[in-house]
């Protein structure tokens, strides 16, 4: 498992560094508050990394503790309702996703993604013997999904509920729910999708724009065209960090939703393929952790976290390339955005911890004496410590 641990940590750090580089490049030419994104990003990065380290060193089994689990369940529920409370909630554009103030806000739906994975992993593990029953295998998980996803949906956010739904399906699949149930749920979900889209006017118009962005190039199609244009201008090797032009205001949300397009422009095809490779590596390492996890709970938790991060990355890239309507989702570990960055880093910490637990439960490995010197300062924190077994 040592290889997986190293891979996960290294990949995470490279993605973080790439994100910081892009945010430096995008913010550098801006004036006023819009230009001060790098210091804020660095603060969140430090907070996130601290959480990352803490999570690596805490046994993930603590999460299945009754009290902690319920704290997560209820606490998240309260947090995602808070944006609707006037005075606490922050409204930006048409959406009410944030709490706090305009300058410093927290997006609780980011946390809700993780809480959903946690609760589902626990429940599916607990009822592993009863999964042949539809109540335990489908109805209960879907109800939890509807609870969290539904509230987030009413915050005028469709991206995170969709990621939640996909992750739920992956968890059910990995927990060995009967395929016929899964097909049934999938069909029901797919049938509900058009209604959900139609229920929110602005979303259906975004889909129309998706079909043909050129019909409204100055209006709704603008963002998409600018995004595609960024990829085009990047070409093979990109214009170079800092030389991108789309960030000069042509491409709205260049530092959040469309950072992948900015990577495409400044680092070219090399950069975008590199990002895809990094997420693929994360995926492979994640799968290995899932398979090597000491128990089913860890396995499901790891698969949920991996899906949340990699699938969201995939999803955001599709948005950037114009295959999906714009959603307002950040690219995990890369984009600017405090809540997302911190929560994603904590989840990565948990994933690494599962890998560590797996390493401990494996037959003791020979001490690797060939660890090269340059790795040492970076990985001193990951030296496995003996775990107290109760």
């Amino acid at each position, binding site marked *: 498992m040592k290889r997986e641990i190293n891979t996960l940590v290294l990949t995470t750090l490279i993605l973080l560094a790439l994100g910081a580089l892009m945010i430096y490049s995008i913010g550098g030419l801006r004036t006023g508050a819009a230009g001060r994104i790098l210091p804020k990003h660095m603060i969140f990065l430090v907070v996130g990394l601290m959480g990352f380290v803490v999570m690596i060193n805490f046994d993930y*089994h603590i999460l299945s503790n009754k009290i902690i689990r319920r704290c997560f369940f209820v606490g998240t529920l309260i947090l995602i309702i808070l944006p609707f409370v006037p005075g606490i909630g922050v409204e930006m554009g048409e959406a009410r996703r944030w709490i706090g103030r305009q300058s410093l806000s927290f997006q609780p739906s980011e946390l809700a993604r993780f809480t959903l994975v946690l609760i589902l992993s*626990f429940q599916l593990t607990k009822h592993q013997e009863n999964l042949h029953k539809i109540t335990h295998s489908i109805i209960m998980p879907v109800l939890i999904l509807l609870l969290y996803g539904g509230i987030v949906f009413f915050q005028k956010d469709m991206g995170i509920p969709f990621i939640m739904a996909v992750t739920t399906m*992956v968890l059910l699949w*990995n927990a060995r729910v009967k395929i016929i149930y899964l097909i049934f749920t999938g069909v029901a979900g797919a049938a509900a999708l058009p209604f959900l889209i139609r229920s929110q006017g602005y979303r259906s118009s975004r889909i129309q724009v998706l079909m043909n962005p050129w019909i409204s190039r100055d209006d709704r199609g603008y963002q998409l065209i600018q995004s595609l244009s960024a990829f085009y201008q990047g070409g093979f090797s990109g214009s170079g960090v800092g030389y991108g032009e789309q960030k000069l205001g042509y491409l709205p949300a260049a530092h959040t939703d469309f950072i992948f397009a900015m990577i495409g422009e400044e680092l070219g095809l090399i950069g975008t*393929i590199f990002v895809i490779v990094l997420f693929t590596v994360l995926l492979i390492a994640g799968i290995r952790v899932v398979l090597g996890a000491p*128990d089913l709970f860890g*396995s499901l938790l790891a698969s949920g976290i991996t899906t949340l991060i990699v699938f969201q990355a995939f999803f955001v890239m599709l948005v950037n390339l114009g295959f999906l309507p714009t959603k307002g989702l950040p690219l995990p570990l890369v984009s600017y955005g405090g809540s997302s960055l911190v929560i994603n880093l904590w989840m990565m910490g948990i994933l690494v911890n599962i890998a560590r637990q797996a390493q401990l439960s494996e037959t003791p490995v020979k001490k690797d004496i060939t660890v090269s010197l340059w790795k040492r300062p970076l990985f001193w924190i990951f030296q496995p410590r003996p775990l107290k077994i109760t």
Partner: protein
Amino acid sequence: MSENRDQERYTGVERRVQQVGFAIAAALFLLGIQLWRLQILSLSEFSKLAEDNRIWQKRLAADRGIIYARDGQVMADNRARVDVVIIPGECPAEMLDTVCERLQSWINIDPEDLHKKIEAYQALPFTQILVKRDISRADQTRVEENQHLLPGITTVVHPQRRYLLGETAGQIMGFLGEISPVELERRRDEGYFMGDLVGKGGIELFYESLLHGQDGYMLVTKYASGQPQLRTDKAGRPMIARRDTIGHLLNLEAPPVPARSGEALNLTLDIDLQQKCESLLKGEQGSIVVLDADTGAVLALASAPGYDPSVFVNRGATEERLTLLSGQKPNRMTHRAFREVYPPGSVFKIMLAAAGLEEKLIDANTRFHCSGSYAIDGKGRRWNCWNRYGHGSMNVVESLAFSCDVFFYTLGRRLEVDRIVAYSKLMGMGVLTGLDITGESAGLIPGREWKAAMNKDKPAWEQQWYPGETVNLSIGQGSCTTTPLQITVMMACIVNGGYRVQPYLRREAGPILSDKIFSDSTIDTVTAGLRMCVERTKPAPTGTGNRARIEGMDIIGKTGTAQVASLSHLSKYKKTEDIPYPLRHHAWFTAGVLDRSPRIAVTVLIEHGHAGGSVAAPVARDVIEYFYDHAASKTSYLTLAGN
């Protein structure tokens, strides 16, 4: 501590997990392929887009064309409007309050308001924020002299429409307003943009494409969210600002293409005459039309009450503008010479006489007897003559002079409705005269087709035209309506010897004359009647238009008193003064001058003046007298006469 610690994984978990993994990995691979297509084999449309993104076309608005009157007086031109703007990004933050205070004391602005505006544009510190629009010359000097004390403050010069004559000919000018979305759609190809000012009425609208000119432009490198700024130098020439709204440096891509001003418009209007006519109408509602009878050139087109078109372009006149547009009575926006329609009354008889003579239904010696009333075939309902006691035996000349109704009832019955309609249209009534201005009304000469179309949902007997209606129509009553301009065109036809003219305002738009409609003998007979109407004083009775008479001038004329309410309705009032204003008759007088050059046709309409002979005729006389005493000697008439 943990409840799930011992839950072992089921067998076959590897397969399931790997399946999901493969699916996502495959998706990521496809994503890579798409990126390859986009970034390496990219589509050509993106390269054009990239160009469009970076070059910005800043429009340089063209000046509107100048409008001149007959003698070269300027009726509408453009003045330099000086606005004060602030560019917060060029003003040090600690100076801002001082600058606001200074502006408050020098050009009297509200500093609170300005602070609010500056705050609203905080994200775009290099935007030009309007401090005060259209400042006076003194204020401008004060601001420019103290430029060193006002960092960030500049003056910007814009062309602004100016109507120099105020209310004089205001309704003919029309007015300007912001282009509507519908019109923008229609005119987009002509180079119009959102927010452009366009003519909304009168000459400004009719000659919009002529007056508008061609906008120029300059190409500027553009940065994303910023908007290029345009400034003007002291002479009002456009200059590119150094920075755009978010502070990026700007530079010109190519030499600017200057704007081409709109073409100048030369009108045939005689401003002195126009002013005279408008002063004659002061206090009344009505209009005066003066046409050059030989060409159709409009010499005066007065309407009262009028408005000053400046209120539509000058800021701060909101109240006046709203009053005008609210449609309060009397309506000041409607030109009463060509937009409003009135029953013509007795002036209609000129056309009837000419038509009867031309159709050879009567000749100069045909006499009908007027006993004071008329009945179709001598029985049934009786139509009264205005003279209850009857005129006795009358020929056409006398009938025109004394405006005998019974003669024309009889003549109208001989002509029948179809010929009346045809001749009306031939002489320019009930059809558009073709004056080059927007908003002309056609009026209405009712006929068989019109009645059938009006009542097509009703039973057949209501669709049918009855002889009684012809009788009404014969003296210009009933549903018949015309505009004063149409009556003038009809009069011009008599004055110039039988040619229908098309009136025109732009000097280059005319003259357009029809073929000869009436034979000389017809014209001679009608002229004789109209001359007698003005000339005859002795023996009694005098001509109805006697008050228009000027010694030594060959004036022809015809009075008209058009009923608004039926006579029986008015009979309860003992004296004219008792009749409520809206129920009084309209007073018409139309006149022509034969022995002077240029020959003119004049029509006076006084709304609710009650009697054409006593109210409208003296006004026409004043107009004619003024014209030949003052205006006709101008060189502009002499040169035209030479053509």
